[in-house]
């Protein structure tokens, strides 16, 4: 393992996998490191950016540029339940627009936002891969297909009560 010189304060951020460092060099390690940081925190905390910057010897500003380029990375934590609505073509022509409207009405938030109680975050994805069930959304790991406004409301209720 490479020995790292990291200021004491920043070293607190360390419980994500850095086994990648045992490889001979750090070629292309930045994105996997960011991914594992996000895996352990649910988002990329500022401290992690500095920490990774030390490891890969890339200025924090440039890392920030990489983070904002890719839609997967978040600089803010997500809500407890993540709703991902499919905006792929098959779902679009089968009415995903109104699915989104119902969701926004029910939750009172727009895309890429989180409810005040931290219970739900709303995101969109391009094709969840079950176009035959369009329109489709996912709540956490569960897929909901052939959506109607009734089904959506019911699903959200289940999660709201399951606090």
């Amino acid at each position, binding site marked *: 393992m490479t020995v790292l010189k990291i200021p004491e304060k920043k070293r607190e951020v360390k419980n994500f996998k850095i086994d990648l460092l045992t490889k001979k060099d750090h070629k292309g390690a930045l994105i996997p490191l960011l*991914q594992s940081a996000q895996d352990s925190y649910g988002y990329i905390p500022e401290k992690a950016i500095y920490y990774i910057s030390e490891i890969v010897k890339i200025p924090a500003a440039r890392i920030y540029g990489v983070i904002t*380029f890719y839609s997967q990375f978040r600089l803010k934590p997500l809500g407890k339940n993540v709703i991902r609505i499919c905006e792929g073509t*098959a779902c679009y022509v089968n009415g995903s627009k109104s699915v989104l409207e119902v969701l926004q009405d029910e939750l009172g938030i727009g895309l890429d936002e989180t409810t005040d109680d931290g219970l739900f975050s709303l995101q969109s994805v391009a094709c969840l*891969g079950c*176009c035959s069930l*369009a329109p489709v959304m996912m709540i956490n790991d569960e897929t909901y297909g052939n959506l109607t406004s009734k089904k959506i409301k019911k699903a959200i209720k289940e999660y709201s009560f399951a606090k």
Partner: protein
Amino acid sequence: MKEIKVGLGTCGISAGGKMVYNEFKDKLSQNNLDIEVKQTGCMGMCYNEVLVEVVDNGDSYLYSKVSSDNVEKIVNEHIIGNHPVDEWIATSRKNIEKDPFFKKQKRIVLQNCGIIDPGSIDDYILYDGYKAIKKALQKYSQLEVIDIVCNSGIRGRGGGGFPTGVKWKFSYEAPGDSKYIICNADEGDPGAFMDRSILEGNPHSVLEGMMIAGYAIGAQEAYIYIRAEYPLALKRLKTAIGDCEKKGYLGENIFGSNVSFTIKIKEGAGAFVCGEETALIASIEGKRGVPRLRPPFPAHKGLWQNPTNINNVETFANISWIILNGADKFASMGTEKSKGTKVFALAGKIARSGLAEVPMGMTINEIVYDIGGGIKDGKKFKAVQIGGPSGGCIPASMGDMKIDYEEVTKTGAIMGSGGLIVLDNTTCMVDLAKYFLNFTQNESCGKCTFCRIGTKRMLEILERITLGKGRENDIELLEDLAEKIKNSSLCGLGQTAPNPVLTTIKYFRDEYEAHIIEKRCPAHSCAALLTYTINENCTGCTLCAKKCPVNAISGEVKEIHEIDQDACIKCGLCFNACKVGAIDKL
């Protein structure tokens, strides 16, 4: 001997496949039956999920739309009682030639998808797996392999359609000690799932194709760049690579030869433009995925400036079939310039949505009607969208067109990776063009001015057209911008972004004009252009008036109501509220 297979691709799981799988295990063990329940990948008939295959003395029966409630009956009557439950069976292997969905298909890439257990390397080997790489290593020189691939006529399945053998030759001839193979599994086209299904259903076939390519060009290292949203495909690839390493199929001296080959996985981070090869390479290197000017092509200066051969998932999945069956046999399928087969993801307003592999040159009508079963809910076939955000819409009137690279390009669309979205008369073409432009505009990396700002301007124009605020020369303005964007963009994203708009203008100009001049949406889809009126069926129940958020509906109880068109904000609530169908949407 009986065996049970449950389709556990992403769509099978979404439809409840895991519950069915567990239910079979439970019911079998309750009955003390020693019968194996296997998982398998996409069988293609996604419209029939959950699919369960019961293999029974040489034949096999495909049960469709199985839920956990059906399991007990299947176990009791078929497994124990030896009487297949006919009314639930979609088809059987013996009759597959007669099944309308399968009859016209030709399965090469998908031949074992939905049949083998994607988690078992032994299953793959049982179905002639890893024979092709052994044959290549033992029988052919590197150049001979390249010749076979050249002679087969296969062209890249990732969209561009560049001849694969020629590309391999470039990388082979490029000077350099370390060369790379990259498998492009980024599949960004929204509404396409061919590559995902192949990776989930038969990951080893992709690995084997990569090994053969590696041997041919002299590469010892390879990467698979896979889309972040494909967790199941990722998991199955990891298992497959691990199993290969254990067997000595990957690593040093593979299959006892003097060739070494390793495969690593890189997960994408959610950027469509990273499907473009130079952006993908930048992303593997850990940078922002911004395309760069070519030449130099990746074959000469690719990953870390080394010669790199990059192919699509489906391209690789064809290779072992070609090596085992010969270039001629492959080239005997298809059209003059497009050989072999193509996998299409059928979706949208089609009755049988799923995964179909057909010989190149099949007509649109054959795919939509014969394989896809026509349009859902008895509506009218309007067009197919092919090629995703880089492609375009081909109208139903051209249904006799043969699908191959050249023919599709002539229409102004592109073959693309294989997404085929079927549209009916309720789809507004202007709105669909807007949808794709919104997508590309969001995904533009921002490097080129025309791609970044031009697409934004086009989107704004389309938005105002769908809002009924279109201006007289908007169509010409769109065409002008489109031309400029095509000519001044660096990568394929910008160069093809206007295609959905241009093809819809070309084939559905009257729809644009109806929006702009008459302020009318012929498909009754653009909300702002609808008119709601109340007809004589109205019973005066007042439900609609109670729902209307702007009090635009007036009328006495038990008398016909009326909508004040100036006040109406076209929210549609009254339309949904009326129980007697007295509200017309026009």
